[in-house]
């Protein structure tokens, strides 16, 4: 029979390592990502990106295309643990807020980048779709990650 202290330790130590790693790595990646997002948003802010279904009547459109951007994100151990505790008490799952915020903005940025690259002048009818990726290792019960898909109609205008 194993010493119960050893057993408890064997459970606690990996947990703390995972928490610590999740916190340090997760926080570093997040702050780097936010810095990059803000930089790229400043670079692409000249491109009109609007959610109206139709372009303004004054626009003279010469060509259109579907543009899209996609991100798939997962969550670090620390954030997942925090969210698990929140599932007990209720309230804002703050650890997910920044994650999904980043994912949405990244998807929009990728969509805008693709429009700029192809010489378009604006994007109309922008939509966001979210899909949960089921965790196959937990019989589809858990969430392995979330996909955010941004899409819209890119237009070229007669100059």
């Amino acid at each position, binding site marked *: 029979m194993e010493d119960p*202290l050893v057993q408890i330790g064997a459970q606690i130590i990996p947990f703390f390592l995972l928490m610590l790693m999740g916190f340090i790595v997760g926080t570093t990646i997040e702050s780097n990502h936010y810095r990059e997002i803000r930089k790229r948003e400043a670079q692409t802010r000249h491109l009109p990106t609007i959610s109206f279904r139709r372009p303004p009547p004054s626009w003279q459109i010469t060509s259109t295309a579907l543009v899209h951007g996609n991100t798939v994100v997962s969550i670090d151990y620390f954030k997942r643990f925090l969210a698990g505790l929140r599932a007990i008490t209720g309230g804002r799952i703050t650890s997910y807020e*920044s994650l999904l915020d980043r994912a949405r903005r990244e998807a929009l940025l990728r969509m805008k980048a693709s429009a700029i690259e192809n010489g378009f002048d604006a994007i109309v009818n922008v939509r966001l779709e979210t899909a949960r990726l089921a965790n196959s290792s937990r019989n589809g019960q858990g969430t392995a990650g979330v996909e955010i898909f941004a899409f819209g109609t890119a237009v070229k205008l007669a100059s």
Partner: protein
Amino acid sequence: MEWEPSDLPENNVTDVHPLRELGLLLVGIGGATIVLTLVLAFFIDGVVRFLPAEWEARAFSGLWEELDPVSDDRQGASQELLDRLSLHWQENPYQLRLFVIDAPEPNAFALPGGAIGVTRGLLDDVESENELAFVLAHELGHFERRHHLRGLSRSLALGLVFGAATGGSSGTLLTEWVSNVTQLGFAREHELEADRFGLGLVVAEYGHTGGAADFFEKLPETGAGAIHRMAAWLATHPVSPERIAALKRVARQEGWRRHGELTPLYLNAEPR
């Protein structure tokens, strides 16, 4: 139409430090769990005391058979010793039954319904009848205090609280630790109570407490390999020196004779 570019509003993320969030949640949930479990355990303790032993015996009859008892030629003599000890416990409501389990670790346990299991390892290790008598009397102490039932109902209380807290789905690591640690706390207190009662029975039978603590005194001395073997025992049972000291203190308070002639363990002399 004029186009005025603007930055995205940064209003989607609550400004709270994740570590602060973690601390608040852990303290809140941990505190609530502890309070709830204690309240529940308190009520269950109150009810369990009044559960008639006959109900218990009927509900749990045959439980011991599931532990796979083996036939051992020391079983009869041990049962006889147990019956002799139980004569000193006048209010005994149980039909006591002793069975032997094929395990090398020295251990004994009380099961609901009045069954006491002892391992072969225990029967191999004891050197005098007094020593075995104390182990059995200690288990009788668990019956007298109804610890065996409280253990069950406390696990039930913990199960209920954690089931409610986690939505009955996730057996997270956290819940396991809390239940391990609290069970350990209950168990230690119970062991000391059972010791006190058991020692009283031993004195009633032999007139002195000699030999009673021999079993615990052996535990730390049996060497490094054996310490590992004893781990399961030590976990729920308080560390031996502490426990021996408690036994001595009780003997002194009650004015019991600490030394006397040890009754030989005739059952070990029989061929196996």
